[in-house]
């Protein structure tokens, strides 16, 4: 059979696949304004030499073994569209949407391809040009992702009745009976993600003075989901900073970093939030702007290159001031911890901390200094837990596969505590632990450090009988 016939036979088998004939030599590069790839950093495409050394770092490739779900394949798909060799087909779109944007491939890539600068604008363009009705009228996306999550006050208000139900034990009863699954799609998953009820504590004051010798003036970034759901982590963080001689300012008027909007196809909404933060933080007053959650930190550090308008230089200056709190303390030299914490712990790298910000050794170095702590290295520590921002809501199947993989790795260390520095990971791993009925404690590293400075003991939870068995088996 000649090549043409063979091609046709493929097409006839799949009439929906509007993939054009492909030629490796033909390079027309018709990337006009209409091209989905118009906004991507084309030079990054050229940097990829197709060596494939990235594939094993990619969570979705590890799970599926398919090049289409690996960075090299995705870059090839984007390049086909960018070069005008084919339109985006539904299958291609699916593979690109399955990407977690964890950017582990950037850490692995020896050629330094900045994959985030390819996939992010490309997916934004897909979202923006998606004319399908269900996308246009996606109440979940508009109502919850874009208008609830990024606003800590609204979120806290909505969470209040839920917390009440949790405290009364009604939610766990419903969860045990599997009734949460009755909630429609993503809403049901969202309900499963909610952390256990803890007292949120009061709002952080505008200023918290340094304890002892003053070593730095820092501004603290509070964020949205992180503040609504993990305020105790914020309190722990600022106390640790105070102990380390930092005057901590918490500027009013700051809000969400914009990552949720940006990653859900609303770059303008993201810019509005970013610019509110530019106003809120007076750069010259502080030595650094500190963030304690990896996802927010990565976004803030990238303010300089997401939008191109008159404010860009200012945004770039802002981005230069942003430091992850572990990175900052590690550089500053941490004041010795006081209390012993006799537990075994393992540290999971948040993707946006380790891959996007390249902060991997600092948290480990800090934790290693806590007296009594038995820190065990987690196998596949840098592989995504499946949270991926809002990925656990949009790609539930893959997300679940990855969080199970993560839990198995955690259990293999035999640790009693899992530490991770990102809201999404905390929620995801907590849910996985809760559903398995394990007694594992999931915490932010700052909480452990805070306990040590305060000389308090860590109280470990007991798991269910089923959970205990699981921990013993592994």
């Amino acid at each position, binding site marked *: 059979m000649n090549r043409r016939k063979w091609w046709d036979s493929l097409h006839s088998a799949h009439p929906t696949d509007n993939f054009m004939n492909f030629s490796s030599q033909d390079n027309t590069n018709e990337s006009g304004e209409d091209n989905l790839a118009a906004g991507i950093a084309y030079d990054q495409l050229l940097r990829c030499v197709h060596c494939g050394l990235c594939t094993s770092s990619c969570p979705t490739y590890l799970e599926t073994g398919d*090049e289409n779900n690996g960075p090299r394949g995705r870059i090839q798909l984007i390049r086909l569209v960018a070069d005008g060799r084919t339109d985006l087909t539904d299958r291609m779109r699916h593979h690109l949407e399955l990407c977690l944007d964890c950017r582990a491939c950037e850490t692995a890539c020896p050629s330094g391809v900045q994959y985030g600068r390819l996939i992010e604008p490309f997916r934004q363009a897909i979202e923006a040009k998606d004319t399908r009705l269900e996308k246009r009228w996606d109440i979940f996306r508009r109502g919850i992702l874009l208008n609830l999550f990024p606003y800590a006050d609204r979120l806290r208000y909505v969470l209040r009745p839920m917390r009440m139900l949790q405290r009364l034990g009604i939610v766990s009863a419903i969860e045990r009976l599997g009734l949460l699954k009755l909630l429609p799609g993503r809403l049901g998953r969202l309900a499963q993600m909610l952390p256990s009820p803890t007292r949120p504590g009061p709002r952080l004051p505008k200023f918290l003075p340094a304890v002892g010798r003053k070593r730095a003036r820092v501004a603290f970034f509070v964020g949205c989901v992180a503040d609504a759901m993990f305020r105790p982590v914020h309190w722990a963080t600022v106390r640790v900073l105070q102990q380390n001689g930092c005057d901590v300012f918490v500027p009013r008027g700051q809000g969400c970093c914009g990552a949720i909007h940006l990653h859900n196809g609303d770059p303008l909404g993201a810019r509005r939030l970013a610019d509110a933060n530019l106003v809120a933080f007076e750069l010259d007053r502080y030595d650094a702007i500190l963030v304690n959650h990896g996802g927010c930190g990565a976004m803030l550090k990238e303010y300089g290159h997401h939008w191109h308008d008159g404010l860009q230089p200012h945004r770039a200056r802002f981005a230069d001031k942003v430091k992850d709190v572990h990175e900052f303390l590690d550089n500053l030299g941490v004041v010795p911890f006081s209390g012993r914490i006799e537990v075994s712990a393992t540290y999971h790298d948040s993707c946006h901390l380790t891959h996007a910000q390249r902060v991997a050794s600092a948290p480990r170095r800090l934790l290693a200094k806590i007296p009594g702590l038995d820190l065990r290295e987690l196998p596949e520590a840098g592989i995504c837990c499946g949270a991926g921002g809002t990925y656990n809501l949009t790609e539930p199947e893959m997300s679940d596969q990855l969080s199970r993989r993560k839990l198995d790795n955690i259990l293999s260390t035999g640790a009693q505590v899992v530490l991770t520095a990102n809201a999404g990971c905390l929620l995801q791993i907590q849910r996985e632990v809760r559903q398995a009925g394990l007694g594992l404690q999931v915490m932010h590293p700052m909480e452990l450090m805070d306990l040590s400075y305060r000389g308090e003991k860590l109280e470990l939870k007991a798991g269910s009988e089923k959970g205990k068995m699981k921990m013993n088996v592994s």
Partner: protein
Amino acid sequence: MSNTELIRKLRAALKPENVLSVPSELVVYDCDAFTVERHIPLAVVFPRSAVQVAEVVRACSDHGCPVVARGAGTGLAGGCTPPPNGVVIVLTRMNKILDIRLRDAMALVEPGVLNLQLTNALSGTGYHFAPDPSSQGTATIGGNVATNAGGPHTLKYGVTVNHVAGLEVVLGDGSILQFGPVEDPAALDLARVVCGSEGTLAIVTKIWAKLTKNPQACRTIRATFASIDDASQAVSQIIAAGIVPAALELMDRGILDAVEAAFALGVPPEAAAVLIIELDGPEAGLDSLLEQVIALCRNWNPGEVLQAKTPAERELLWKCRKMAVGAVGRLSPGYMIQDGVVPRTRLPHIFRRILEIAAKHRVRIVNVAHAGDGNVHPILLLDERDRDLTARAKAASREVLEECITCGGSITAEHGVGIEKIELMEKLFAPADLRAMHRVRQAFDPASQLNPGKKYKTICQ
């Protein structure tokens, strides 16, 4: 039977989620890390067992369409580029370590297990899997067997074939065979024949891998030289002194620029070449051996000789060496990496010739080399969009390999022949040699069903 029917048959055999047949999903399988030649396959399948591999092979054989096995697709010679109208059998979903038996120093693995995955699984046991190609974090053990992969430490420990005790394979007719793992003088050692056959004799579905005891101690040094000539003279002398380092690697200035940009290794800018030398073995005597090596290097005026003092420093050195090729993207949008071998005494000669050839064809060439093995990896920088440059690079590449043959070496040490070097086989081997190889091939795969058009030209075509 039409292609549609074949695809239906494959879907029935493997379940639909393990078969790709939509053109826009097939396109990413059009090549491996050798990007100069590409073909979109007819279908891509992900079997999960030898039985499924056999079913696929039989279905394709009935249909008269060729198959090619693929691991991680990091091959550099086009070994798993699909033949036209071919089906790609991707083995990445067969990725389980089935058994580790430390008392026998052996592990049973599926072909999709990553090289490093096995070594990681052995951490704490005092054993490792010795072949360590630069792509070991990504490349599969099945792929290592197919190309008989090497790596820096094969200088002392030998290439993949030395670490394979047995194989389970599927032949072109769909039969499943097992060679080894027990050493049996009564049998022909067919596992060794399959190693390095680049998927042209059989598809490997299980590997009994030999495990190697970790050395008690090691010393790793980095020495800089004012010229690549001096560095390669030092290599020749170390080998001539009867010393077998665990690894003896060379990088020239060009590749160092890329490595510095990627990993900030800290090599002084005036250094024209760097040797990475690793010695391992029992702690006793290792330091005096190191002194001996350093003294030999001193004969060739090294700029600085630094020893890795911590495991982290050693790791950085190796990371720089192993990721060097991938870092070439910082120098150029594309490249072609060559894999020639020369007798070690001819290293200075081949590097001089490479420079001349680069100048002649107006192609920039940077060098890494497993120098201790006489294995050179000139990397030719190109841009696929520039056809003239690509053609010149191909010509230069060919000339380098011809020079290797003239020196008494070979056209490949570890990457394989693939489609890239198939033309040179006739230069390297006498017709009688090629006929013998062809007859072996026919014995395994009479219909030339498995990976045709690779390694040796299929004479029956």
